């Protein structure tokens, strides 16, 4: 398998500049002759589709939601990082680069991360030009806040709705291009397979969710901006519809899957309240700017929070990480919460929770300031829990939030299938083993607005792309696969719902491939998941037919893919016997319980290659070379 990263040579600072010069261009008049299929309409997909259309390409864009504006980027709350140094606090492109590489526990590519940091500043300019209402100071300048894993204030935000405002900016740009005819939009459409012709990605098979019609759409390149796969855990902060199908089917058509086990468990979510729970709700990390995290010092302390005197509280993040305190990175904060709960010091009915307390901040700043900063988050918390965070500390617990793993891509964001490009959370590229807060929005928009539009031109200009029609045997065969699979799901007529399988898979993944992993647990999961998958294909009950809106069928298809992906995640987690970032192997920790990397043996990207049904996937390795940053034990103390 060709895992050449295609990182340009030369000094870090000049790589992207030089690469842009060296890439081939497509003549402006020729661009409209090329069709690019963009799957997904979140920050990455919408920004890419709009920009490609502005450049003159013929673009088709697909989303499973009823409108592109509903992609799950919309739910990102806290903010977007950029190395503007508007606060004069010592930020720089190099510092954002360094923080991101370190935050990712030295498991990301230097060149990709540096490019991301360079582009970050342009993103803010672009979004302001579009009318994104970022928070401002009284003088009219942009306001910033701090986020975990950084000691500078570089996060731009629009209340607790930054993702919404950025996505609406990209969505509006997309609608502008739809109006010009440059983009044809296909909402309520799900990609069910990738069409590979003569070794190149040339199309996708889609299902129209309203009519059930299965069709092949062809083009010159395919772009996946289909998001992460956190819903493999059933409970996560992802939207209910978020799924792995597009990237999983592409994996099975030859795209390598990079670091599937790298999962981010976000420290500040509302704890689970019952078995019926359908999803978990994030409370933005920005709350940790002013909230203090604590648990009682005593085990099984059932007193109400206000009855516990100051001296009997353990502000464990401030105690363990005095220099970063409550703003320690996500992986470390989550693991610390798990530790105190495992010790029996958790709070709330289930004892799987810690306090996030605003009493000091309210005393210092007043209700009004806190309301202005976090009003909508406080309201959301109160609606869900029926508790008032102005009066009672919030209860929070970690939840699956983001997947750093994804399809392997080179510096040009192209997968191991030529022509298949992968952007945003769907790829593996920039966050290493742990993503810092406010960096997902940055990456999605960097990929979509400013990287892919250049690199895809180079691919098109330097490739021979003979016309392909729907009667090509490879197209026909892929379409038949999809149709057969749909028929098979409907024909099983078993006893269990797809949701019940999904919940059971989620439990296996959370228990064995969650915040802490060990060999015995992963091996257990690797025997349980195939058994569950087998039962699924014998006993799932998918009501309704194929030629209509059938949400049960959509869900069942996604669960079937999660049942395969979960196994690969466990396999990856088992092989990586070191701890790094969000991947914590209990066997590999420092004396004080921090993640212990094994740089000698694991400074690589694990790129898994599909080898066929019932055959073990093949592990390929892309060695990570650090020329600028010195690998060190991460310390936030």
């Amino acid at each position, binding site marked *: 398998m060709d895992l050449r990263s295609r990182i340009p040579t030369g000094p870090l600072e000049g790589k992207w500049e030089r690469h842009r010069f060296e890439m081939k261009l497509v003549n402006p008049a020729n661009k409209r002759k090329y069709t690019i299929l963009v799957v997904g309409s979140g920050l990455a997909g919408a920004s890419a589709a709009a920009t490609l259309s502005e450049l003159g390409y013929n673009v088709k864009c697909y989303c499973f939601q009823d409108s592109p504006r509903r992609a799950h980027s919309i739910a990102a709350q806290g903010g977007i990082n950029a190395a503007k140094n508007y606060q004069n606090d010592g930020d720089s492109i190099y510092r954002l680069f360094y923080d991101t590489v370190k935050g990712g526990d030295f498991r990301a590519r230097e060149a990709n991360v540096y490019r991301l940091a360079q582009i970050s500043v342009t993103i803010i300019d672009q979004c302001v030009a579009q009318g994104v209402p970022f928070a401002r100071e009284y003088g009219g300048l942009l306001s910033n806040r701090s986020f975990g894993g950084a000691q500078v204030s570089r996060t731009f935000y629009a209340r607790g709705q930054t993702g919404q405002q950025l996505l609406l900016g990209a969505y509006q740009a997309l609608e502008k291009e739809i109006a010009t005819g440059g983009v044809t939009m296909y909402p309520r459409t799900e990609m069910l397979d990738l069409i590979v012709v003569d070794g190149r990605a040339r199309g996708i098979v889609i299902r129209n969710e309203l009519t059930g019609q299965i069709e092949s759409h062809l083009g010159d390149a395919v772009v996946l901006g289909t998001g992460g796969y956190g819903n493999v855990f059933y409970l996560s902060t992802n939207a209910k519809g978020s799924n792995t199908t597009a990237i999983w089917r592409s994996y099975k058509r030859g795209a390598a899957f990079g670091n599937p086990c790298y999962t981010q468990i976000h420290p500040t979510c509302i704890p689970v309240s019952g078995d019926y729970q359908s999803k978990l709700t994030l409370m933005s990390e920005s709350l940790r700017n002013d909230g203090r995290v604590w648990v009682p010092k005593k085990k099984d302390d059932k007193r109400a929070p206000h009855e516990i005197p100051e001296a009997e509280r353990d502000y464990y993040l401030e105690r363990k990480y005095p220099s970063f305190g409550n703003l320690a990175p996500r992986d470390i904060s989550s693991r610390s919460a798990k530790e105190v709960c495992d010790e029996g010091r958790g709070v709330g009915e289930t004892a799987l929770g810690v306090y996030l307390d605003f009493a000091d901040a309210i005393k210092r700043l007043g209700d009004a300031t806190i309301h202005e900063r976090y009003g909508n988050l406080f309201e959301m918390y109160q609606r869900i829990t029926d508790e008032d965070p102005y009066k009672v500390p919030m209860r929070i617990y970690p939840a699956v939030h983001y997947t750093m793993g994804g399809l392997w891509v080179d510096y040009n964001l192209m997968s191991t299938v030529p022509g298949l490009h992968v952007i945003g959370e769907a790829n593996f590229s920039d966050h290493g083993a742990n993503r810092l807060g406010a960096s997902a929005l940055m990456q999605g928009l960097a990929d979509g607005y400013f990287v892919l539009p250049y690199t895809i031109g180079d691919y098109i200009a330097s490739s021979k792309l003979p016309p392909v029609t729907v009667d090509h045997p490879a197209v026909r065969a892929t379409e038949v696969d999809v149709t057969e699979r749909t028929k098979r799901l409907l024909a099983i007529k078993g006893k269990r719902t797809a*949701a019940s399988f999904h919940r059971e898979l989620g439990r296996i993944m959370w228990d064995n491939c969650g915040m802490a992993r060990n060999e015995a647990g992963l091996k257990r999961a690797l025997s349980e998941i195939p058994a569950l998958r087998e039962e699924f294909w014998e006993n799932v009950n998918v009501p309704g037919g194929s030629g209509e809106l059938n949400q049960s069928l959509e869900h069942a298809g996604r669960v079937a893919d999660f049942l395969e992906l979960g196994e690969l995640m466990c396999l990856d987690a088992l092989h990586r016997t070191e701890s790094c970032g969000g991947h914590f192997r209990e066997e590999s920790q420092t004396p004080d319980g921090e993640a212990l990397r094994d740089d000698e043996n694991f400074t690589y990207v694990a790129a898994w290659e599909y080898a066929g049904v019932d055959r073990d996937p093949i592990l390929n390795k892309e060695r990570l070379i650090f020329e600028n940053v010195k690998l060190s034990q991460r310390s936030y103390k």
Partner: protein
Amino acid sequence: MSDGNPPFIMNLTLRVWRQPAPDARGSIVAYEASDISPDMSFLEMLDVVNERLTERGEIPIAFDHDCREGICGSCGVMINGAAHGPMRGTATCQLHMRSFNDGDTITVEPWRAKAFPVIKDLCVDRSAFDRIIAAGGYVSANTGGARDANEILIPKESVDTAMDAASCIGCGACVAACPNASASLFTAAKITHLGLLPQGQPERYRRALRMVTRMDLESFGGCTLYGECQDACPKEISIDTIARMNRDYLKAVMTAKD
């Protein structure tokens, strides 16, 4: 919050609009929703009902939903005649069963508007909203070439008011609640968001003209200022935005060159 009492369980009767296809006749069908926890969200309650329907071999109730945290705008149903149900400023996914009483009968229907045809059960077609945005709900700023973000000074008050309007989630509750099925609040929210910012000025009047014209073409009703929309809006967007839209539209019509 737990107050030490044993867990409280509710038994409810649902009356749900079932319609198998866009052109099929629909009807209200009654279902028992038993053993419901007050801590469930309204959609989680529907999930439970759907699981039981599936287990019994019946077709589950179709409803749109995605983020389940009140921001994507996918969900939205009429609950006892109110868009998104009884809680102010709350989308259906954020409504919890503690807002109801044990033994209640709850009627659940799709948005009712000519411009939002029913697709199936509780799902409707809201693509008219996308077409209104495509008519002009943007700033024409192609990617690249933007100047430094801090070169545009925007008074905090302007950006705060713009943000109030920009928080619209496009759910359609305003249309569903309006006796005229007008899309004025939705359209006005975008016109207000962009019209309050310096970046939105060059296209301000053209935008108002084009978006309002599109809205009228989409078979939404006219606005007669009932104000039901702002009461139903999960983001509590004010009808002041409609006054702003009308002013911009009027100026656009008066000064239009063609």
